[in-house]
C-alpha cells in the first residue's frame, strides 16, 4: 500500500553509539519548528555500542500518529543500514549513503539479522543482482531511487581545512550531523531552522553545538551544489513550512507520564533500572524541584532501590504517610512486585504502578514492543483483591490519564496499574500543550490535617481504619495523625487492622474490599472507561459495520488508517472503541455501545437487509488477551484478531492493509502481522 503523499517518512540508522539519537532529535526539532506535525519512533537493541539502531520520523501538515513501513528518505553512514532498510525505499525515494561502505561484504556485517539478510538476498536474486552493496545500489537505481553520495571521509577532511581544525578524531563524530544536514538539503529545508534544531539538541554544550552547526552548513551547501533540484514530490515541505499551527509541543511518552505525575501531586517515586521504564524516573528526578502556585517550593523524591521488590514496598510505605506514591517498572520487574501488590490490596493502600510493557516472557526482547502483560496485570498476586488496570492509547492521553489514575487510587483506596509500553515511551509526537490548570485532584476519603477530632459525635473508642459500614471505602489517615493510630497487616484483619482468622470477619472484609469493583464501574465516568475514538457518519449505503476494539498504543495506527479508509468507502461503517479501563472490565458498557450502534443502523432509514457486523480486535500479543477478556465478560464474539508479536509496533501500513482485507471479505480470522526491522 502507498500511504498518500501528505506525509513523508524519513529514517536514519547506524550502529548504537554513533549519534543516531542526536541526529534524529535535531531532525525532529527542526521539522516541528517549521510547524509540521511529526511522529518519531526509536528502535534499538539491548546493547551499549555497535548493534544496529534506527529512528524513523513521519511528518506532515496533517496529524500523524504512527509509523509507516515505506521510506521516502533513508539516511545512512554505514553498510548495515543500507542492507536493512533500503528494501523499504519508495520509488522516487532518496538514499543518502557513503560510497566508501560499498566495498563491505554483506556476509561480513556480523550484526545483521537473518530476516534482513534473507529479505535483501531475495530482492537481489529476483532482480538478478549480485549479493553485494553494489548490487543493492544497482537495484535501487532501477527502482528510481535517488542516490545522494556523501563521501564522509573526504568531506570531513575538506571541512577540517575550511575551519582550520585538524583534530580528525573529534571531527569523525560529526558524520551523523552531516548525514542529517544532507537530508534537510534534499528537502530544501530552511537553514536557520536547521541551526536552531542543532542548538536546541546541544543546548548544554555550546562548543559542540557550534561545530555541528558549521558541519551542517558545510554539508548542506555541498549537497545543494552537487545534487541539483529537489524532487517535485517533496517540495510541499518547503512550501508549507511555517504555515501550520505553531503552538504545539513535541513530547515523548517517557516525559508525558512524569509530567502528569508532577501535576497529579506524586511526590514520591521509586524504581529499579529497567528498559523502557527508567526514563520516566530519570525525567522526574532531573526536574524534581517544582514550582508551586503558593509560596512554597515542591519536590519529588525519586529513589533508586536495590530491586523491584524494594521499589514497590518502599512506595507502599511512602503511600501510608499520605503522599501520592508511584513505582515505575516493566514486565520482569512487575513479576517481582506481585506479592506486594496483594499487600497493598488487602490493606487498601492507594498505590500507582506505571507498567511500561516490553516483549516477554522473561527477559524477552528487552527493548522491543509488546502488549503481552494485560492478563498478568489483571491477575498478578495471589488471592483476590480489587485493583484497577487502566491503559493509555497515546502519548498525549498518557499525561491526562496519569492524573486520573492517581485520583482512582485515592478515591477507591486500592492499587492501580497504569499500562504503558515501550512504543509510547520511546516515541515522540507533536500535540497540543497540556491544559492542566483546571484538572481536579480528588483524594477521596483521606483525612488531611494532623489529628482526628475526637470530640465529634459518634467517635469510637479508637480509630477504625477498616470500619464496617455501608460504604466499603473508609476513612484513611496518614501515619503520624493524632488519634488516628491504625494497624496494617498482610494477614486478614479486623476493623482496627489487627490480625484475625475469625470466619465472619473474613467474610465482611472480603466483601468490603471486593465490592469496590462494582463501585469502580459505577463511579468512573463511562467515557473514561471506553473511549469511542472513531465513528463515521451513517450513510444510506451502509452494508457493513466494522467494530474495532483495541487497548493501549495501537490507537495511533488504527486512527491514521481509519481516516484514510473512509475516504475510499461509504458502504462500510466503522466504530472504533478503545478500552481504557481493563479491570474491572466494562463488559456491560461495551455490549451496550455495540448493541446500540447496531440498533441505530438497523432501524435508521428503513433498512431492508440487516447490516452485517464484524468485530475486529487489534492488539500486540499472541493470545489476543483483550479478546479473552471480552469473551469472559460479554456475549460478543470476535470475527477477526489482528495480532503482532515480533517486537515491532504495528504500522499504519499494516493496519490499513488488514482493514482493507476485512472490508473486502478477504481476511483470515487470525491475522499475524510481521513487518518491522
Amino acid at each position, binding site marked *: 500500500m502507498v500511504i498518500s503523499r501528505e506525509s513523508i517518512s524519513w529514517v536514519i540508522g547506524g550502529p548504537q553509539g554513533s549519534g543516531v539519537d542526536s541526529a534524529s532529535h535535531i531532525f525532529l526539532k527542526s521539522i516541528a*519548528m517549521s*510547524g509540521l506535525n511529526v511522529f518519531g519512533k526509536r528502535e534499538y537493541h539491548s546493547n551499549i555500542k555497535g548493534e544496529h539502531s534506527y529512528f524513523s520520523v513521519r511528518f506532515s501538515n496533517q496529524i500523524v500518529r504512527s509509523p509507516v513501513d515505506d521510506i521516502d528518505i533513508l539516511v545512512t553512514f554505514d553498510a548495515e543500514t543500507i542492507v536493512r532498510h533500503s528494501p523499504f525505499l519508495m520509488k522516487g525515494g532518496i538514499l543518502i549513503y557513503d560510497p566508501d561502505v560499498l566495498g563491505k561484504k554483506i556476509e561480513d556485517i556480523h550484526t545483521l539479522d537473518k530476516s534482513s539478510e534473507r529479505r535483501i538476498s531475495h530482492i537481489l536474486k529476483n532482480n538478478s543482482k549480485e549479493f553485494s552493496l553494489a548490487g543493492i545500489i544497482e537495484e535501487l537505481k532501477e527502482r528510481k531511487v535517488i542516490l545522494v553520495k556523501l563521501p564522509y571521509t573526504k568531506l570531513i577532511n575538506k571541512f577540517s581545512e575550511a575551519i582550520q581544525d585538524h583534530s580528525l578524531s573529534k571531527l569523525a563524530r560529526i558524520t551523523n550531523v552531516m548525514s542529517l544536514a544532507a537530508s534537510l538539503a534534499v528537502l530544501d529545508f530552511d537553514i536557520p531552522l536547521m541551526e536552531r534544531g542543532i542548538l536546541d539538541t546541544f543546548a548544554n554544550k555550546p562548543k559542540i553545538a557550534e561545530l555541528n552547526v558549521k558541519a551542517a552548513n558545510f554539508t548542506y551547501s555541498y549537497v545543494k551544489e552537487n545534487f541539483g533540484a529537489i524532487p517535485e514530490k517533496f517540495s510541499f515541505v518547503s512550501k508549507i513550512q511555517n504555515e501550520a499551527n*505553531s503552538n*504545539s*509541543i513535541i513530547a515523548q511518552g517517557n516525559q508525558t507520564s512524569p*509530567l502528569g505525575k*508532577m501535576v*497529579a*501531586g506524586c*511526590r*514520591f517515586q521509586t524504581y529499579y533500572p529497567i528498559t523502557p521504564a527508567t526514563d520516566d524516573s530519570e525525567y522526574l528526578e532531573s*526536574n*524534581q*524541584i*517544582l514550582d*508551586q*502556585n*503558593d509560596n512554597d*517550593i*515542591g*519536590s*519529588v*523524591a525519586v*529513589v533508586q*532501590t*536495590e530491586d523491584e*521488590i*524494594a521499589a514497590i*514496598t*518502599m*512506595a507502599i*510505605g*511512602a*503511600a*501510608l*504517610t*499520605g*503522599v*501520592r*506514591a508511584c513505582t515505575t517498572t516493566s514486565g520482569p520487574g512487575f513479576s517481582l512486585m506481585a506479592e*506486594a501488590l496483594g*499487600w497493598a490490596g488487602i490493606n487498601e493502600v492507594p498505590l500507582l504502578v506505571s507498567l511500561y510493557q516490553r516483549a516477554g516472557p522473561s527477559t524477552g526482547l528487552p527493548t522491543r514492543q509488546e502488549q503481552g502483560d494485560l492478563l498478568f496485570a489483571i491477575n498478578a498476586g495471589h488471592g483476590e483483591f480489587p485493583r484497577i488496570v487502566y491503559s493509555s492509547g497515546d502519548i498525549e492521553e498518557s499525561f491526562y490519564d496519569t492524573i486520573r489514575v492517581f485520583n482512582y487510587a485515592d478515591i477507591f483506596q486500592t492499587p492501580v496499574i497504569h499500562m504503558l509500553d515501550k512504543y509510547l515511551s520511546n516515541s515522540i509526537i507533536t500535540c497540543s*500543550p*497540556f491544559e*492542566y490548570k*483546571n484538572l481536579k*485532584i480528588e*483524594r477521596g476519603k483521606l483525612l488531611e490535617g494532623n489529628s482526628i477530632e475526637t470530640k465529634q459525635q459518634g467517635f469510637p473508642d479508637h480509630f477504625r481504619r477498616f470500619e464496617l459500614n455501608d460504604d466499603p471505602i473508609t476513612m484513611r489517615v*496518614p*501515619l*503520624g*495523625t*493524632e488519634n488516628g*493510630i491504625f*494497624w*496494617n497487616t*498482610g494477614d486478614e484483619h479486623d476493623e482496627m*487492622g*489487627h*490480625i484475625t482468622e475469625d470466619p465472619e470477619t473474613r467474610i465482611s472484609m472480603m466483601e468490603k474490599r471486593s465490592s469496590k469493583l462494582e463501585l469502580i464501574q459505577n463511579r468512573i465516568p463511562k467515557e473514561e472507561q471506553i473511549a469511542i475514538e472513531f465513528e463515521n457518519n451513517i450513510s444510506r449505503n451502509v452494508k457493513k459495520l466494522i467494530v474495532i476494539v483495541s487497548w493501549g498504543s495501537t490507537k495511533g495506527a488504527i486512527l491514521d488508517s481509519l481516516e484514510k479508509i473512509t475516504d475510499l468507502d461509504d458502504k462500510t461503517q466503522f466504530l472504533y472503541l478503545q478500552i481504557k479501563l481493563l479491570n474491572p472490565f466494562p463488559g456491560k458498557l461495551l455490549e451496550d455501545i455495540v448493541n446500540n450502534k447496531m440498533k441505530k443502523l438497523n432501524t435508521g432509514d428503513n433498512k431492508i437487509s440487516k447490516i452485517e457486523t464484524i468485530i475486529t480486535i487489534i492488539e500486540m500479543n499472541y493470545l489476543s488477551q483483550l479478546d479473552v477478556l471480552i469473551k469472559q465478560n460479554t456475549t460478543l464474539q470476535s470475527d477477526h484478531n489482528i495480532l503482532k508479536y515480533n517486537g515491532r509496533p504495528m504500522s499504519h501500513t499494516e493496519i490499513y492493509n488488514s482493514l482493507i482485507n476485512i472490508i473486502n471479505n478477504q481476511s483470515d480470522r487470525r491475522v499475524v502481522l510481521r513487518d518491522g526491522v
Partner: protein
Amino acid sequence: MEYKLADFKTPVHNDWCAGCGDFGILNAIQMSLYELEIPPHQAAIFSGIGCSGKTPHFINTFGIHTLHGRVLPFAQGAKLANPNLKILAVGGDGDGLGIGSGHFVNSGRRNIDLTYIIYNNGVYGLTKGQASPTLKLGMKTKSLPQPNVNDSINPIALACISGFTYIARGYSYDIKHLKEVIKKGIEHEGLSFIDVLQPCPTYNDINTKEWYQSFTLDENNPSIRIPKIYKLEEEGYNGVVDNDEESSNKIIKAIEKSKEWENRIPVGVFYENKNTPTYEERIQSRIDNYKKYPPALQRIRDKNGNPNINIDKLLDELRSK
C-alpha cells in the same frame, strides 16, 4: 500530654509461646518509647513475617506488619516520605538475613534514620523450627531431620560492612540492658541495627535460656565463674567513632569482636559513627526544604481542588518553537 507506659500497650491477645524471648524485646521497645517520651502517634513500627512480625499489634503506635523479608524497604519508604516520624523496624533472623538479606545490605548504603531490631533465635519458629541463617553449621536443633548443612551469617559483621552506623547487640532476658541499647539506637541519627539474642523455647533446644545464662570456670582460678554473656562497655571496649580516621579501624575491631561465640558472647554497642551523613541529609543537599516540607506534607492541590503546581517551564522546553 504526658504518657504512661500503659499508653504504649494494646489489649490485643499475645499468642507467643510461654517463655518466648520475644516478650523481653516487646517490653524493652515499649519502655524505650515511653522513656524517650515519644508520643505514640508520632511513631510507626514496621515488622516482617514470623512470630516477631506480630510485635506491632501489641504496641500502641502505628503498626505496619509487612511482608516476609520486606520490612526495611517499607519502613524506609515511610521515613523518606515523612522524616518527622520515628520509625522502628523489627523482624526475625530468617526474615532479615535470609529472604530479606538484599534489603539489609542495601539499607546500609543509605543510612536512613531508623532503628532495625532482629529477633535472633536461630530458627524459623512459626513454620516449626527449620534452620535460620544464624544457626551454626552442623547444629541439630530438635526439629531438624539432620544437622544444619549451611554455615551461619554473622549479623553484626554484615551490618559493619554494609554501612549501618549504629550496631549493637542485646539479650532478650536482660531487658534493662536491652532497653538502653534500643534507646541509644532510636536516638542515633542514622541507620541503627540491634541484634537481639533470644531463645526459642519451643524449637531451639541448643541456644536456650540456660545456655545463654551459663558460666565457664576460670582456668587459673576455678572459683571464678565467667558468664557467657558479657557487656562490651564493662570490659573497656569502645566502638564509638570520634573522628572519621578511626572508622575503618573501629569497623575491623567490631567485626573481630562479633566473632566471639560459645564461651564468651559480647552484648552492647559494637560500633557507632555519627559522622556519616544520613540519606535524608543527602536529599536535603539537593532539595533545600526537604526536611521542612517533605513529600508527605506537601500541598498538592489548592482549595478548589486544582493542581498546586506550575509546569509551564517544562512545557516550554517541549515547545516546537
